[in-house]
C-alpha cells in the first residue's frame, strides 16, 4: 500500500502534532513512513504544513508535489493546495475558518467539517486538529485507532499528558462526524 497526505494551516493549529502522531502510528504498525515539515519563522500565526507518506514499500521522495489527500485548516492553505490534490483524492476542509464557496474541486472526495465547532462539542475548541485527524482516519483507515492512541505519550510533550483523554474525545468526535455523513 501507499498513501500520502499534506496537512496545512496556521502555526499553532497543531498541524505538526497530528502529522507526527499519524507517522508514529504508521511506524508502529510496521509500515515505512516519512514525515516532512515546512514552516515559516513564526511559532504562531505563520503558515505551517507537513507531508506524511506511508507505504509498505521503500519510500522515495518525502516531498510530495501532488498529494492523494489533504487536511486544510485555513484559507491560504486551501488556495495553495487544492489544485494539487490528485483526482479522486480526499480533501478535508475546515469550514469553521474557510468559506465553502472557496472550494473549487468537484473531482475529489470533499469533507466539509466545522472543525472548531466539532472540537467545542467534544469539550475543547483548541482540538480542531484532533477532530480533523479523526475524520481523516475514518475516511482512509490508513492506521488503526488503537495505534494512534498508543502514540500520544511519545509524541506529546509530558506537560500535555493530562490532556490525552480530551484529545481522544476529539478524535472520536471526528470519527462520529464521518459516520453520520454516510
Amino acid at each position, binding site marked *: 500500500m501507499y498513501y500520502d497526505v499534506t496537512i496545512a494551516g496556521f502555526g499553532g493549529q497543531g498541524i505538526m502534532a497530528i502529522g507526527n502522531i499519524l507517522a508514529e502510528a504508521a511506524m508502529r504498525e510496521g509500515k515505512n513512513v516519512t514525515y516532512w515539515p515546512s514552516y515559516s519563522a513564526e511559532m504562531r500565526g505563520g503558515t505551517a504544513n507537513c507531508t506524511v507518506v506511508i507505504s509498505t514499500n*521503500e519510500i522515495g521522495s518525502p516531498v510530495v508535489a501532488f498529494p492523494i489527500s489533504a487536511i486544510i485548516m485555513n484559507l491560504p492553505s486551501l488556495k495553495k493546495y487544492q489544485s494539487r490534490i490528485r483526482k479522486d483524492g480526499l480533501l478535508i476542509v475546515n469550514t469553521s475558518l474557510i468559506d465553502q464557496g472557496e472550494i473549487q474541486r468537484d473531482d475529489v472526495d470533499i469533507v466539509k467539517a466545522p472543525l472548531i465547532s466539532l472540537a467545542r462539542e467534544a469539550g475543547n475548541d483548541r482540538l480542531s486538529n484532533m477532530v480533523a485527524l479523526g475524520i481523516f482516519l475514518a475516511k482512509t483507515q490508513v492506521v488503526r485507532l488503537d495505534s494512534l492512541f498508543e502514540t500520544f505519550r511519545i509524541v506529546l510533550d509530558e506537560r500535555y499528558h493530562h490532556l490525552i483523554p480530551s484529545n481522544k474525545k476529539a478524535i472520536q468526535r471526528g470519527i462520529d462526524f464521518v459516520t453520520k455523513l454516510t
Partner: protein
Amino acid sequence: MNDSRKRLINGNQAIAAAAIDAGCRYYFSYPITPQSEIPEYLSLHLPEVGGTFLQAESEIASINMVLGASAAGARAMTSSSGPGISLKQEGLSYMAADELPALIVNISRTGPGLGGIAASQGDYFQATKGGGHGDYRIIVLAPSSVQEMYDLTIKGFDLADTYRTPVMILADSVLGQMKESVVMGGRKKSTPTKKDWALTGCEGRSPSIIKSLYLDGDKSSEHNRKLFEKYQRIQKNEVICELNRCKDADLILIAFGSAARIAKTSIETAREKGIKVGMLRPITLFPFPNQQVRDISTNIKDILVVEQNTGQMVEDVLISASENARVTFYGKPSGNVLEAEEILCQIERCMNKVGT
C-alpha cells in the same frame, strides 16, 4: 516488520544521537537554522554522558574550540549551515594542515549570502574542493535518509581518526527536518583509535608538535606531499556509492543526497512506464566515485545528472565519464524543492535521445 528498536526522529536528531554513540564528548557551535535540532539534542543529552556542550560566541570561535579539543585527542564536533560553514573555513584549513580529526556538519541553506532555509545543494563545491585556503581536501559524506544521517555520522568519526582529517556531513533541510524510522546502536561500536600524536602533556616522553607553519621550503613541500598522498589513499580506499537498478538500464541518473532521494520516486514511476532507468548515487562526494562513473558510462552512454543547484557535481561527472558518454544536466536553483514529477520529465526527455 514492526521493530521495537525503531524510533521516529528527524535527520538532525539522528546526527546528534550518532555523535554521542560514536563517543564524541565535545560539541562547540553557534546557532543557525535549519540545523537547530543538533545543538538542541546535544545540549540536553551530552551532559548526561559527561560531555561538554558549548555555545560559542561565534562560528570562528567554535571551530577553533573543535581544533583545540581534537589536538588534545578528543572526538569533537561542530555543526552549522551555509554562511556559518563559510566562517569556519579558516579553521578547517588549519585542521587539514594540522592533520586533526573532527566531524563538521553542514545542513546547508539556499545561498549565496544569507539565503533561506529551504533545501539546497549549493555548497558542493565548497565542501569537496577544499573550501578554505590551500591545497587540501576533506572527506565529504552525503546521506540520503535519516538512517544514513545516523550511520554516516558514526562512520565519519571513524574515518576522521583513521586518516587524521576533518570529515564533513553535507545535507540540507529535507534530510535534516524529515522524520523517518531509525535503528540506533546495535551495530559495530565505533572505537576511537589511540592517538599517540595528541597533545596530552609530555611528562616522560618527547613532546608532540602539531603545527601548520613550515617556513623551510623542503619541509613545506614534504608536508604538502604527505597530505597529497593521504588524499590519494582516501581516493583509493574509501569511495562509497550506491548502484540501483543499473543492470538493464538505458539511462543512468546520477544524484546525491536529497536530490537522489526525490529522484528515487521518479525512477520508480519511470520503471512503471517501462522506461529502463537506474541510479548511481555518490555517498562519498570526496572521494568522488570517478572510476564507478567511468565504468558505468562506458556501458551505458546516456547519463542524467540532477542537482538542487545550477551545476556543481556535474563537473566531477564530466571529468569522470567515458569519452563516448552523453551527459545531460538538470539543475533546480535552490529555493523551491525538487519535485519527482519534474525529474520524471527530464528522464523522459533523455529517453527520446537514447539510441540516437
